[in-house]
């Protein structure tokens, strides 16, 4: 077989159905909990029922006598773990995943034991029967913006940036907005609960898991269990959503422990209620935004301070104040993220960490400023477009926010908008429209890939990417096809296997950009090597790539995706019901690899914005310390009936200086979406809603105050 002729048609940029689509619509796609194992043991986690304390006793004896029970693991019997390390993402492990190492309970829902049985029914009953005795200590989960123990904290970015004289610029401003905005505790809730099956075979550990990065999970498990990473393999072929929650969590570690002790495969799946404690979440935020502007809307002062909450055992900072560092400049510019430690589970990355709650506050405040200045909200933003990074001073890679607003305004019909609030009625509904800006960083991280020219004329790409619903498998197929100069049908992309080497996780909107760099590098070099008519040996010809050096050589710039969000809402002031009637998002997000799937990424993010604006909220009872109604009937996410026509499209966003031109699109869609809806609710009713979600009771009571 010889290499075939090059194809002239580019695959990137035209819509392709998902390469695994047929498996997904026929039920053939196997997710982590779907892969059968002989002699499988079923693990069921037992979580603490107290919010703070110590385990006095766990009565495992009677449970071990129950039918089918194979083991009870707790802090007295579980293998010891190493937790003093820095993982591949440069962060320390959340000790919640290092299960059963001590008797301390730092929050409600802390894993205290694992019961393993021969059937899921037996495991469930045994876990329910396990009596755990606690010494209960007083707990504190009271979160507000005025906690004196809230302190500046870095997390993934510096805690504080500061320039200029805020007091002076605010005093000199013609218009000042000074408001507090709050967002609630939110949960990822991918439709597939976290599940992992672990087994040992011939001295090697294999884990079939649902995660956002197989190589990442290998690194963490190898560190935790002090194993040679080469002896650990993690596979994660199909992943039922992640949104930031699917890293290393209690279930994988517990499954490996049990498989180690029992010498048989053990699966541990989180139940939906358990996910509220163990899957991570987005912290609530209390944000104060102060904006000062000249009469023409030019910002003199911008002050954005965000307080979030973390656990006592691990610090994660939800950096709500970070978005202003990119979006708007001012003579005096102050941003600050603070965190308070409480007796709650540690939060984690959740779709657009920082930007999602931060843009709700900042983009709402800008709408308020536009109202005060009597300037159109889009004009106000465009008047404040910065020339360079407001904090970094770095030049922007193409920043096409203006084009997003112009195209969006045209298509949404913004020019016909009457700016007055509360004047449009249709039956029982008050109607309004709103807008907001969006941005999200376009980063990349080192990854490896291998591309093989097969003897049969096909090509195989191997990289430890994860397709958590982003369409990454299909996108990489198209990227590889173009780099090889062949039709996508001749390319097979294999992902979700740590055996393929290190690769960036599906996170931070960095996955497809990072993996594409590696795939393009390997495919490009392979293409160079293959001469027309050349014979391919039976084992094929493989080229490997590693983008570490290439990324280190990239010039530092402010590189982000941008967007303009538009929403129309209807509000029934008599009942407080809010319905989104339509949304439009126009984005500038680099080269769009697969328009068919990209549209879904953008609209999916925007619908997360609907859900964030109107529905999502986990309420904790201070007396018990845990969420109330910890299930999908108590924690509402948007369903079909909440989602009207939602359209997304994009403007040209070419970056000639960037080697791939691809930016992330997974997160920018949610940024600003909730603010656009809240601004539309104001336009409909004349009442500002600065606390999410905009529940019917809030609309009703706010209306009566107004």
């Amino acid at each position: 077989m010889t290499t075939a002729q090059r194809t002239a048609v580019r695959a990137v940029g035209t819509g392709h159905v998902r390469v695994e689509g047929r498996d997904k619509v026929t039920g053939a796609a196997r997710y982590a909990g779907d892969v059968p194992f002989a002699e499988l043991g079923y693990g069921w986690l037992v979580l603490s029922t107290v919010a703070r304390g110590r385990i006095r006793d766990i009565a495992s004896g009677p449970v071990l006598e129950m039918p089918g029970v194979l083991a009870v693991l707790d802090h007295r019997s579980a293998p010891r773990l190493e937790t003093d390390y820095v993982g591949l993402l440069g962060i320390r492990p959340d000790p919640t995943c290092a299960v059963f190492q001590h008797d301390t309970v730092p929050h409600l829902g802390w894993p205290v034991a694992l019961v393993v049985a021969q059937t899921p029914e037996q495991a469930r009953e045994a876990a329910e029967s396990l009596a755990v005795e606690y010494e209960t200590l007083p707990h504190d989960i009271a979160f507000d913006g005025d906690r004196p123990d809230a302190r500046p904290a870095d997390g993934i970015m510096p805690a504080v940036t500061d320039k200029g004289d805020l007091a002076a610029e605010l005093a000199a401003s013609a218009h000042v907005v000074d408001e507090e905005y709050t967002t609630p505790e939110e949960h990822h809730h991918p439709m597939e609960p976290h599940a992992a099956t672990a087994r040992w075979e011939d001295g090697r550990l294999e884990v079939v898991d649902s995660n956002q990065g197989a190589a990442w999970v290998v690194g963490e498990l190898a560190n935790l269990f002090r194993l040679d990473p080469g002896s650990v393999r993690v596979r994660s072929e199909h992943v039922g959503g992640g949104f930031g929650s699917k890293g290393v969590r209690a279930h994988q570690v517990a499954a490996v422990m049990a498989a180690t002790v029992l010498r048989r495969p053990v699966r541990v799946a989180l139940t939906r209620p358990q996910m509220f404690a163990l899957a991570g979440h987005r912290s609530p935020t209390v944000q104060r935004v102060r904006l000062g502007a000249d009469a023409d809307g030019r910002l003199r002062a911008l002050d954005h301070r965000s307080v979030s909450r973390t656990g006592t055992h691990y610090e994660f900072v939800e950096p709500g104040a970070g978005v202003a560092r990119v979006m708007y400049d001012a003579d005096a510019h102050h941003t600050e993220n603070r965190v308070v430690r409480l007796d709650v589970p540690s939060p984690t990355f959740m779709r657009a960490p920082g930007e999602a709650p931060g843009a709700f506050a900042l983009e709402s405040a800008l709408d308020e400023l536009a109202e005060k200045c009597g300037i159109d909200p889009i004009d106000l933003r465009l008047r404040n477009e910065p020339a360079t990074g407001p904090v970094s001073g770095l030049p922007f890679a193409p920043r096409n926010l203006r084009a997003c607003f112009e195209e969006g305004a045209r298509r949404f019909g913004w020019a016909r908008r009457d700016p007055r609030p509360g004047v449009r009625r249709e039956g029982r509904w008050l109607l309004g429209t709103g807008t907001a800006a969006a941005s999200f960083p376009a980063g990349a991280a080192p990854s490896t890939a291998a591309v093989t020219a097969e003897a049969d004329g096909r090509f195989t790409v191997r990289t430890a990417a994860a397709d958590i619903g982003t369409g990454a498998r299909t996108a990489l197929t198209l990227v590889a096809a173009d780099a090889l100069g062949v039709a996508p049908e001749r390319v097979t992309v294999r992902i979700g296997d740590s055996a393929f080497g290190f690769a960036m996780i599906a996170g931070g909107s960095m996955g497809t950009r990072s993996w594409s760099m590696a795939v393009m590098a390997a495919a490009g070099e392979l293409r160079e090597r293959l001469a027309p008519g050349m014979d391919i040996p039976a084992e094929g010809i493989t080229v490997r790539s590693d983008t570490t050096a290439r990324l280190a050589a990239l010039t530092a710039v402010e590189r982000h995706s941008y967007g303009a969000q538009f929403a129309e809402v209807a509000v029934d002031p008599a009942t407080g019901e809010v319905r989104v009637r339509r949304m439009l998002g126009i984005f500038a997000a680099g080269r769009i690899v697969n328009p068919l799937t990209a549209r879904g990424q953008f609209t999916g993010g925007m619908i997360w914005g609907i859900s964030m604006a109107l529905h999502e909220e986990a309420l904790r009872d201070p007396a018990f310390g845990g969420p109330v109604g910890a299930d999908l009937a108590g924690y509402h996410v948007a369903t079909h009936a909440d989602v009207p026509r939602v359209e997304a499209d994009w403007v040209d966003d070419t970056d000639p200086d960037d080697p791939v031109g691809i930016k992330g699109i997974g997160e920018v869609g949610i940024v600003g979406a909730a603010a656009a809806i809240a601004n539309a609710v104001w336009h409909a009713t004349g009442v500002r809603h600065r606390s999410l979600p905009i529940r019917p009771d809030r609309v009703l009571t706010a209306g009566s105050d107004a």
Partner: protein
Amino acid sequence: MALPTSSVITLHINGEKHTLPVDHRTTLLDALRERLDLTGTKKGCDQGQCGACTVLADGRRTVACLQLAVAAEGREITTIEGVADGGRLHPVQQAFLDLDGYQCGYCTPGQICSAIGMLAEHAAGWPSAASGDVRPAAAAAPLTAEEIRERMSGNLCRCSAYTSIVEAVARAAGADAATAAAVVPAQSGEAVA
């Protein structure tokens, strides 16, 4: 005397008979997934709150997580593995594939089974909460986007592929034209019935 807590049952699934002993606690969902290797039916919440485990029981959409297997004996169960006609996809499956009516794919089998059941319900003239006048004298509600959304609301999709799911269901229903007209954004919102 201890009461029996398990039974040997025969389940009729996708036209095949399966005889197996079950713990009475076993749900139809767990029987499919853990006993019969029919893992296309997904466990999203195990509490009847997400729709991922939707199957058809005697043609009607049902959540398998709240259906005890022992109580399903005698009913004809159709799962996602049984909706295609051999190698030819069911029109609903084909439309989901063509219109990208999913992302991660985990809720997809439930969405598809639900859509198949829903289309039959609509064809039988069942009204919905979106139908306004439910009286039988009123004209049968056309399958607008709003009707599809209300009728499909028992199936959560956290990736939020809702817009393309609705388009796919409409296409499969042969309602393309009517529904497309209904979902085009109008000046002050949406022209739905």
